[in-house]
């Protein structure tokens, strides 16, 4: 996050593992859409961009989300300046 992102309405979105490969990117800076208030809203907004987001973030797909590096729920708020990461269930150890 850049210091002024919280004032500019910018989200830093990050993708890891299978999702990084599927989206062909490890992340992007997004102008926070007006209608996005929480994780569920951001997922719905990304899916409306079409493939590959529609397929990879479809309901029932094994996707986890972290907001500002803490595991999040669909109802977790998403605000200007946040870092939101999308990734599959973890497989370390």
């Amino acid at each position: 996050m850049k210091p002024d992102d919280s004032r500019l309405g910018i989200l830093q979105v990050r993708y890891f593992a299978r999702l990084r490969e599927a989206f062909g990117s490890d992340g992007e800076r997004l102008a926070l859409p007006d209608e996005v208030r929480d994780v569920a809203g951001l997922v719905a907004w990304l899916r409306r961009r079409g493939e590959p987001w529609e397929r990879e973030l479809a309901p029932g797909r094994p996707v986890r989300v972290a907001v500002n590096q803490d595991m999040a729920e669909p109802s977790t708020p998403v605000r200007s300046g946040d870092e939101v990461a999308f990734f599959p269930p973890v497989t370390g150890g």
Partner: protein
Amino acid sequence: MAVRIQTQDFDAGAEMAALRKGDARVGAVASFIGVVRDLNEGDRVREMTLEHYPGMTERALEKIVAEARSRWDIYDALVVHRVGRLQPTDQIVLVVVTSAHRSEAFQACEFLMDYLKTRAPFWKKEQTGQGGRWVEARAADDAAAERWN
């Protein structure tokens, strides 16, 4: 309490000695080492690559260690996890716990591994004869973590 993410190998003996050095309260040292196997889901594994989420990984592991500390009377804990390319027989992860008595050390060590496997942002991609594939999370790992609740 320490958490380290690194590409290089680790010396478990040296880590265990360092963790309890000079602490005469310690009566028990429990440890776990995870190692790359050459077989998974029936296929030969040639190599695996471990990816992680820098920043969140350390934060998640530190939370897990703090949780262990709140549940058991332990003196110290260490988690070392490797990332990058690893081959069968390579060490992946080390957990060490010190306490006065064995029961706390054993339990906290197992708890740390169960929580690490389900909460710390690491992902494994295996190279087999059929090409690369992401390892899928196992229900058994979720069940192992759930039993501590």
